[in-house]
């Protein structure tokens, strides 16, 4: 019917307390698009993202991934559908007492049986892929560290690996930078966007930081009190739009003036020889 990867039709979520978190949201995300979802606290960003893989059960409307209606799936079909949706969390949500490798491999739980996962006997291809991903994010030397020994940026990179090893088509990213310092935040956002591009993934990124959203996303959706109030390109976020999303405020410092952030993304030739763990030293 459509070429959208994800389609939300009149999505409604009402919590048992009576709070209407989503008031009929319509949204389409095409394949490979990185979309940022901005909005004030309590606007329903987190609820929206969790409705898509039904960690939160929507109370009305429909969700489609391709032609499959997620809202209709039974238990085991839902588990299979969840494998297609990698999720990255605020404050990482790694299982702290498991090792880095176990956390990454837990992304394969939907693909392997209980006893294999219980004895940590994952297929060799999964282990190989886990090593590759950890190398890609510069953590291959920390495979057997416990997750709670890592710094914030490192943990979030493990979280990214866990989501990617699911081999998803869509990434659901919930405030990935909420507890990171500004530099690490940029590095994490850049990593997520690069990986999406490499693998042709679509992503929905909940984010508080409007500047970061403008810097990395191809499209911005503004959510306010459970309704979409802005849907357009990053440079369309004018003061009047921000005022509509967040309320009255002086936005002059937030608006991005076509700033190009060279020097951070581009590496000087001399730096390439530096081992990856040192190159990532800013994240540790």
């Amino acid at each position: 019917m459509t070429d959208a990867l994800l389609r939300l039709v009149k999505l409604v979520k009402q919590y048992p307390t009576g709070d209407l978190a989503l008031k009929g949201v319509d949204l389409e995300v095409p394949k490979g698009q990185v979309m940022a979802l901005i909005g004030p606290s309590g606007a329903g960003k987190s609820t929206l993202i969790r409705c898509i893989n039904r960690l939160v059960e929507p109370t009305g409307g429909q969700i489609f991934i391709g032609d499959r209606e997620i809202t209709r799936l039974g238990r085991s079909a839902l588990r299979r559908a969840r494998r297609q949706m990698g999720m990255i969390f605020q404050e990482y949500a790694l299982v702290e007492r498991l090792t880095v490798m176990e956390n990454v491999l837990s992304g394969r739980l939907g693909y392997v049986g209980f006893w294999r996962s219980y004895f940590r006997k994952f297929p060799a291809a999964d282990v190989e892929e886990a090593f590759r991903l950890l190398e890609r994010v510069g953590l291959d030397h920390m495979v057997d560290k416990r997750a709670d020994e890592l710094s914030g940026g490192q943990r979030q990179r493990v979280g990214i690996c866990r989501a990617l090893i699911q081999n998803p088509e869509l990434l659901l990213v919930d405030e990935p930078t909420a507890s990171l310092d500004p530099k690490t935040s940029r590095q994490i956002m850049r990593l997520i966007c690069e990986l999406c591009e490499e693998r042709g993934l679509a992503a929905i990124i909940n984010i508080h930081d409007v500047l970061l959203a403008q810097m990395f996303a191809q499209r911005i959706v503004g959510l306010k009190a459970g309704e979409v109030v802005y849907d357009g390109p990053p440079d369309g976020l004018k003061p009047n739009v921000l005022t509509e999303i967040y309320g009255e405020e002086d936005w002059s410092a937030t608006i991005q003036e076509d700033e190009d952030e060279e020097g951070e993304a581009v590496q000087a030739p001399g730096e390439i020889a530096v081992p990856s763990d040192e190159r990532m030293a800013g994240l540790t």
Partner: protein
Amino acid sequence: MTDAAVSSRGRQWKRPPFITSPLLRWSLITGGVLYLALAFGTTEVNWTRVWEGLPRGKQFLLAFAPPDFTSRWDAIVDGVLESLWMTAVSTVIGILMSVPIALGAARNIASPPVYYFCRTVIAVSRSFQEVILAIFFVKLFGFGPFAGVVTLSVATIGFFAKLLAEDIEDMDPRQAEAVRATGGGWFQWLNYGIQPQVMPRFIGLSMYRLDINFRESAIVGIVGGGGIGATLNTAFDRYEFDSAAAILIVIIAIVMCVEYSSGYVRRWVQ
């Protein structure tokens, strides 16, 4: 200048009282004081009887000394071995039975009917003290260590399942949610999302319960549940206080050993 002006106004601040309603607060206080006064006032202490009892107590204590390890040594060894066996078996059985009940009794992962059922099992197990359970099971299965093992296993459920369920309820839901989002099954979710979070508590509680079960095995023996308690009871019945003293010393030594090692293990797993 302005600071002085403000402080000279002398504003007062008092911590708000814990119970806001003054009527309720004062009636609780006077009620409590009144009851204690009456309770102490009606406690009868016959000081002459206390005084006459003192030399008897002294004789009784002297009868313990010196402890006699030799004449009943074989019985002591048998009793201790039986108690240790009861402790190990009942702790393992009790924990195996506790785990599913603890999962059912954790509000955040069980559905309401399962939750109330499991909470009832725990409440029943907790409402009977070991001695009462032991009397019941000795009547049911006859004298001997089997009744003791059943008693300690059942008592373990009330303790272990309740505390483990509380730890499951206190876990970090985000870690469990992240594992659920990967599309794993329910048992995988338990194994990856919840088990790592509660494992230190699980091991700590197991060691603690092992310690408790050994001490209780001595009590349970006194009402017929076998083990070192039975040996101790026999010694008292025969007025062999020196042997009884030896048994008590052995019990204390073992309890201290178990307690020290369980403390060590609990620190190690954190």
